[in-house]
């Protein structure tokens, strides 16, 4: 059932030009730009920015927009009357962003490697940045959808977290100040930097991602609504 729901979501995403361009085109365009613009300054900066924009657009914005739009269409309510459990419905609807993010991250990494980036010294930390960042962004997206009554409104409601994600990441790059880990993007950027042999504490960075996932999850439980009527 999860795969059937996920496949339907992929179709819907592909058939909606705005959502598809945000989820597919935007991260790839920005990623390519980051590789060209920051490659010389240090590949970890370029990769961190690529990953943050992928997480921001593909996971966070797409999660928020999909859930708001499916709720607005009463599709979520309909799915709850069917054979699938709540967890299956939610996972199925969120399958596209959760699968697209690692695929895009891998694709962009391939672009960077082809453009001359060295292989990361600690690929495990890079993987942790992708998975942890996706979890934090997905939880934040579910929570944000709770205060987003229409898909159009998502353009506004996703602003603060998206900026904090990208801003926190940029703040953290090249900084050894542990306070940068308090921002949502800080942990992702620091893990990427350490993966390429840069300075930083991967344990604290992972803890930061865990914390943001927990906060997002707790807010999601409080704010998420299945039905527009309640």
């Amino acid at each position: 059932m999860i795969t059937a729901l996920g496949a339907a979501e992929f179709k819907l995403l592909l058939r909606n030009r705005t959502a598809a361009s945000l989820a597919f085109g935007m991260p790839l365009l920005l990623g390519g730009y980051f590789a060209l613009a920051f490659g010389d300054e240090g590949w970890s900066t370029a990769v961190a920015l690529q990953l943050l924009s992928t997480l921001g657009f593909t996971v966070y914005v797409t999660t928020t927009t999909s859930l708001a739009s499916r709720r607005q269409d009463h599709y979520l309510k309909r799915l709850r009357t069917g054979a699938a459990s709540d967890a299956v419905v939610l996972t199925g609807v969120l399958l596209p962003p959760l699968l697209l993010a690692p695929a895009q991250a891998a694709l962009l990494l391939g672009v960077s490697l082809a453009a001359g980036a060295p292989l990361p010294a600690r690929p495990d930390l890079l993987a942790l940045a992708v998975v942890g960042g996706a979890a934090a962004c997905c939880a934040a997206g579910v929570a944000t959808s709770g205060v987003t009554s229409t898909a159009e409104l998502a353009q506004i409601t996703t602003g603060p977290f998206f900026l904090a994600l990208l801003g926190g990441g940029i703040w953290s790059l090249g900084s050894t100040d542990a306070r940068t880990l308090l921002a949502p993007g800080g942990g992702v950027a620091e893990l990427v930097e350490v993966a390429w042999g840069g300075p930083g504490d991967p344990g604290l960075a992972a803890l930061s991602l865990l914390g943001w996932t927990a906060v997002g999850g707790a807010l999601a439980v409080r704010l998420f609504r299945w039905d527009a009527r309640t």
Partner: protein
Amino acid sequence: MRNPVIDVTGLRCRYGDFEAVRGVDLEVAQGELFALLGTNGAGKTTVLEALEGLRAPSGGRVRVLGVDPHRERSAIRARTGVVLQESGFPADLTVGEMARLWRRGDHGPELERLDLAHRRDVRIKQLSGGERRRLDLLLAVLGRPELLFLDEPTTGLDPESRQRTWEVVRGLLAEGTTVLLTTHYLEEAESLAHRLAILHEGVVAVSGALVDVLAAQPARISFDMPGRHDVASLPMLTGDVVHAPSGRVDVRTRDLQEDLGALLAWARRDGLVLGRLRAHQASLEDVFHAARTGREVVAA
């Protein structure tokens, strides 16, 4: 009632400070069609959502197919079919994709039965209102549910589509399916329902078997009073007589045959014409109107 399929006592539901449902009791037996009627905002959909397990009640006890539908939704989901008031279709999927998503398989015969086979590859956003509603019904009955919830299934349908829906519902009833229906079309309830309840402002104003509910309401006779006559010149009648300034006389009676006979005999004897004469047993519309205005509320 032994082992009712739906058993509700003292159901209450609130939206913040507003209590939409204020103590509703319902019992629905296996194999019957129970109609839940009421004006917009009477609480019909909220009651249905509580029964479907989509909403936690703020008070009372709800049992559907023997379990608490909200706490044990997984236990009843596969045994129930639901037609929601808002279809909740993603606009960009096709009819066939939606049916396959809902339940694996080809579904050709079902699509045929609801006259949707030729629309299989059409996106849902291109369907007419009636086609959407038929797709709704199709999905709800795909799994051969034991209990079917229909929230205004025929709203916006043309007469032919409505007939088709009724045929499908009658077929399911014949197979033993229990149906809970809400509708604004009273003739629909009169034609399909075994028993019914009329909700008004979150409480049950009237409930019972259709025949009992109708029998509890007085019948009506109305006519234009012949010139130069008034109420005093009418024969003795068992019912209550109201003579409106327009000249129209309205008699509400428990003994339609007796009073109508007396009126006709009086008119024949004096050579009078009772203009626009009408006589009828209470219709569901009369019951509904009485429940809404709080007049002659009965619990049969």
